Structures are given as C-alpha cells and as structure tokens.
C-alpha cells in the first residue's frame, strides 16, 4: 500500500501540506484505507502532473481544476474511442473497409 508518506518520498518536490490541499480539492482522489489514504499508480502519476503544473510551470490555482477537467474529459473520450476502435477492428474485413472508406470520405 502506498501511503501519504510514500507519496511525498516518491515525488520529492511535493510536500505534505500541498498534497493534502490537492486531496481536499479532490484533484487527487486516493482510496480510503482502514487507517489512512491509499494511493495507486494512477494517483502518483496524477500527483506528478499536479507537481508539474503547480510547482514547475507555476499555473495558477484557479486554472488547475479547469485543466484537470479538460484532461479528464479527453481521457474519457479517448477511452470510448478505443472501445469503438476495438469493436470495429473485430468486424469482418468488408465491414471494416466500408467503415474506413466512409469515414475517410467525410474527413
């Protein structure tokens, strides 16, 4: 289990106070463990992203939720596109070709 202590050990440029603010704002959403918050790999990557935005690029606090929301929407969209891509890839050759041709025609 990756704890809050581990996170500030892994991402050295983030301190406890800052991490707690991010969790309170729900920019980072660790799982709730029996005793304390439990982070996974995605949470750590999220902390790194926030560290980059807030500390390295000095993006203002008001802009961060806007950026996160847009990033999250893009990832949801990409996830759905991946599903569609998989479904189309599983179709027989002629249907796949037909979809591709028609899509190209409209681009």
């Amino acid at each position, binding site marked *: *289990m990756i704890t809050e202590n581990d996170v500030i050990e892994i991402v050295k440029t983030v301190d406890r106070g800052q991490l707690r603010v991010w969790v309170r704002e729900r920019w980072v959403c660790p*799982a*709730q463990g029996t005793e304390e918050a439990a982070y996974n790999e*995605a949470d750590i*990557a*999220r902390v*790194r*992203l926030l560290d980059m935005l807030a500390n390295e690029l000095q993006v203002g606090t008001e802009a961060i939720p806007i950026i996160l929301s847009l990033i999250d929407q893009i990832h949801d*969209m990409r996830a759905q596109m991946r599903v569609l891509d998989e479904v189309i890839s599983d179709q027989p050759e002629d249907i796949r070709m037909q979809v591709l041709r028609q899509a190209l025609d409209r681009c």
Partner: protein
Amino acid sequence: MEDPYKILGVSKSATDAEIKKAYRKLAKKHHPDLNPSDKASESKFQEISAANDIIGDPEKRKRFDAGEIDASGNETPEHQYYKQYGGRPGAQQYSSGGNFDDMGDIFSQMFRQRQGGAGGFGGGRSFDMKGQDARYHLAVSFLDAVNGNPQRITLPDGSNLEVRIPQGIKTGQSIRLKGKGQPGIGNGPPGDAYVEIEVKPHKLFKREGNDIVVEVPISFDEAVLGGKIEVPTIDGRVRVNVPAGASTGQTLRLKGKGVKPRKGKTGDQRVILKVVMPKVIDPELKAFAEKWRKDHAYNPRENM
C-alpha cells in the same frame, strides 16, 4: 543533444529569468499530459526538460558556458506520465462524469451505459446523474484471499460494507460494489464502490500463479528413513509421505491443494523439503557418521 540554448529558443546572453520563462512556455505547449494524443510530445518534452536542466540551473549553466560539461549525458530519465493511466482501469476515480450527449447516438449511449443510466438510443435528456464512485483500499490476509473469506469495511460514517472476496484474488485487483458509492443526483442511480485489494504476505505460504509453495523442515532421520509428516495447507493440515532418502530442495506436489480461482485451473501445493540437522550432534551420531564414512563415502559435489 542539440545546443540547449537553441532548444529553448534563447540567446546565449539571455538572463536566468528569460530562460525560465522560455522553458515554461515550451513546457506548457509540449507537456505530454497536455497532449495526450501526440506521441511525439514525449521526446520533445524530454529534450526541453534536459535543456532546462543545464541552462535553467545557474551553476550548471556557468560550467556549460565554460565548456566544462557538455549537453550530452544529461538526458532526463524516462518519465511516468498521467496519460498512461487516464481513462484506464485504476483511474476510474478521475472519470470526468462529462456528458457526451451531443456526440451522436453511439457515444451518448455508451456513456449512459457506463454511468449506469437507463440507456436506450435517442433517450431523453434530464439532469439526473449517477452519484460519485467511492474508492476503498482493503488489506486482506493471505488465507482470507486464497480462500475467499468475506470481509467488512467500516465507512467513515460508522456503517459497514460487506465485501465478498472471490477465491484466489490477487493484490491490485478491484471489487466493484454496485450502488454502494455516493447517492445519485435527481433520479440518477447511486455511484459504485470500488474496493482495491492488497493481499498481505503469509509467514509460511507463498503464491506462484495458482500454486502454493511452502518450505517444510524435516529431521535428519526423517530424511534417511522417510515416513509420514504433517504439513500445513491453505485449508488445514494434511499428512504427506516423505520418500526415504529425501534431500533439501526436493519438492513434493500435493495435487489440487493450491488456489481454487473462480476461473481457471486449481493449483497445487508444492512442498519444498529442507533437511535440518539436530541442534547438537551427540557422540553417538558422530561415532556413527565416522564409521559410516569409512565404507560409504560419496561426493555430492562431483558435478561442480
């Protein structure tokens, strides 16, 4: 690496502040997480950050300008970006909850399905929304995980959540409890609870695939003569026959005594024998060994 000044687009006489500004501007443009669909952004960003590592640091910049260090050998290590996780299992907590209603029937239908809504092509619009998902982390003992013993989580409000553990669950797997998240908005259904499982190690048993591996010490006389010994398994002790002349490292396979996963083949238990000599070698044993050696010496290292 190319000239770091060129990469950041600044002159050799730029001030530290100008360099910082140029770096930030480029980093904002090329950061891989701000360009999730662009594969090339990763190497571009890597280049920018490596350049900044040199001339963005006044000390290193001085040494670089003096020719004491060059731009090579300053590649930044491979970075983990959020885009590797976003929109994938393990990052459900960051789902935007955004609506793709204007994206046409297929997308809005897929979206509604995922949000647990009523679905249906061309369905009506409303402000009903599924509640937020909750996320829990649960540490389960080794035996509870392999045997699938139900667990209980106490929520912050003092209530309890029963979690049925599928037999043979592994660390990192998640259990979805439908409707156990936050209440929905309007007539929307409640969110789901995701319980991430961590299996704690056991002092005797180890798991390899669906096999359980356990090291069992045997005495010197048991090794020589063989016989029945009792060994622990994940569902109690069983008696096992040790063949005469057993050596350390020899493995006995107990068919079907491993993990019984919900899907897939039941594993075995592998018992690795370990011969343990008595703590004190008494005169009798010593005398016997000396006598035995005279006529029966053997070299276990002849192939070394």
